[in-house]
């Protein structure tokens, strides 16, 4: 196993051992799954999805749209995103001006101004 072990500055990482453990725990999980409720039947009323006691509504309506995912996160960081989106103007002139500004800053730092 030694040639497979990747030594990092403060530890090691061996994917093969990781996979062996994955398989072992997968087996354990499968055993637990096997010991579960045996009354499950496919394609009966038993497996129909219910939402708050009612049958499932039209599928187009319950689709979670991509722009709704992480709504809270984006709402909390609204100001941050406002700044970033205002920076990305889509105007080619601004792209070049950023380049000129960064070139000036980096050159000054390299020459030893800061």
């Amino acid at each position: 196993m030694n040639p497979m072990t990747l030594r990092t500055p403060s530890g090691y990482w061996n994917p093969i051992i990781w996979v062996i453990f994955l398989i072992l725990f997968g087996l354990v999980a499968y055993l637990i799954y096997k010991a579960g409720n045996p009354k499950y039947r496919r394609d009966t009323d038993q497996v129909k999805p219910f939402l708050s006691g009612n049958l499932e509504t039209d599928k187009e309506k319950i689709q979670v749209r991509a722009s709704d995912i992480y709504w809270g996160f984006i709402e909390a960081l609204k100001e941050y995103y406002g700044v970033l989106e205002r920076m990305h103007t889509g105007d080619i002139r601004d792209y070049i001006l950023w380049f000129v500004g960064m070139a000036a800053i980096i050159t000054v730092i390299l020459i030893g101004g800061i």
Partner: protein
Amino acid sequence: MMEHLPALIIAIPLLGAFAAPLFKRHHKAVSIWAILITGITLIVSLLLTREVLVKGILVYVFGAKSPTLVLPSGYKVPIRIMFEVDALGAFMAISATLMSFVGALYSYSHVAHESGLEKYYSLLLLLEVGILGMVLTGDLFNLFVFMEIAGISGAALVGFRSYRGEASEAGIKYLIISAVASLMVLFSVALLYGEYGNLNLAYIAKNIKFGVVDLIAFGLLFTSFAMKCGAVPMHYWVPDAYTEIPAGGNPPLLVATYANLYALFRVSFTLFTNIVINISRAGWIMVILGVLTMFIGVTMALVQKDVKRLMSYHAISQTGYMLLGVGVGLTVLHDPSKLMEFGRDAIAGGLFHVINHIIYKSLLLMTAGALFYVTGTRNLDNMGGLARKMPITTISFMIGAAAISGLPPFNGFASKLIIYETSYMLNPILTVFAMVTSILTLASFVKVFASAFLGPPLKKYENVKEVPKPMLIAMIILAALCVIFGLFPKIILDKLIYPAADALINYLQYHSWGGLA
């Protein structure tokens, strides 16, 4: 014949590119021609890498009596154009040829119904030539020429769907950006030429005196290459260009971006690193740019609705990891104890991340192209429930997403692990940013997976089928590489990455053309 490999690896795709327009109106033939040529180039690059790893730096002098005649009798300075291939260049050449092959294979069906295919493949092969020239050359002016070749053909590929106004917009943005960047590169090359009277990278590096003019040239080179590899805050062209290019052109364009990253490393490590002077300032600039790049890139990715645009922002964010890893190495390059402790590993981690990222991001962008192919839209809001219809695409996407988020045992984990540990040694705050970025990456790919593949099957996509076989094969190759690189990171690192990192660290060997002078 083996000593001619550096010339052949340029000549073969050039031949393919120039012969491609002759296949007018034979769409199948020109696709197969491109696949054939890129396949041969891939084999040549593998042979080249083997040569370099066995024999050390390979020098090829164009037009000389023999390929290794750097200084003909009576000459004190090299005068001909030359290629100088070290392990890093060979490593980039493998990435470039592999991705061009995969891109050509994918394009076989992805762009089959577009017109002007002979031009498309001609441009694809020219882009490959540009990248290969950039990563193999040992001459500053040649670097500029090949950078322009890659820039022009890349911009033309971005604007290939000329019936879309957005494609032309993205194309002209990319073109102006790359034209300005390469003109500034030429300007700094001219500054160096005026001072040292030569264009050979190794010769200038040996004689450099670090006057103010040199440092101005360094600053311009650094910023130009940083802009072309998409470092924040000069990253704005990346999402535009990656989104509008046909998905088959994405892998080569991605490698073209990293060829500029290679040039950035080459300039900072080989050209402007000398035994006399310590410029770890450049390393700190690189580290700070890297942290900014990965954090801003990933937060912008989180709010995107366009699937390819989201992935392009991730490409920016992952570039930050490479800048961070290699930047950590550059800051401690002149401190032998720290260099042995973590600097070498940091550089190796950054370079390993380059190839890992090229593989999984190409895979992801190609699955996005497959989604576009079957649904005709890139807007995630209009997708859903595609997992059942396209099982292989779904599995490829899952592998790619797991790899980019750094889940074991895929390839992203190994390189990210090295980068975390080494950047922790330099400054723990860097590691915090890197880990937060990784978490946000996983979050945004969960978003793509949930909205495009999961959820109830939509009525409008009832008749959707799996994409054609060439696209599937291209995706499966890359997914398999993700798994292989993840399961055997040690072998890849020892065979390919550590030699490349050592090539950056042992700059003195490069300066003497591999010991020829």
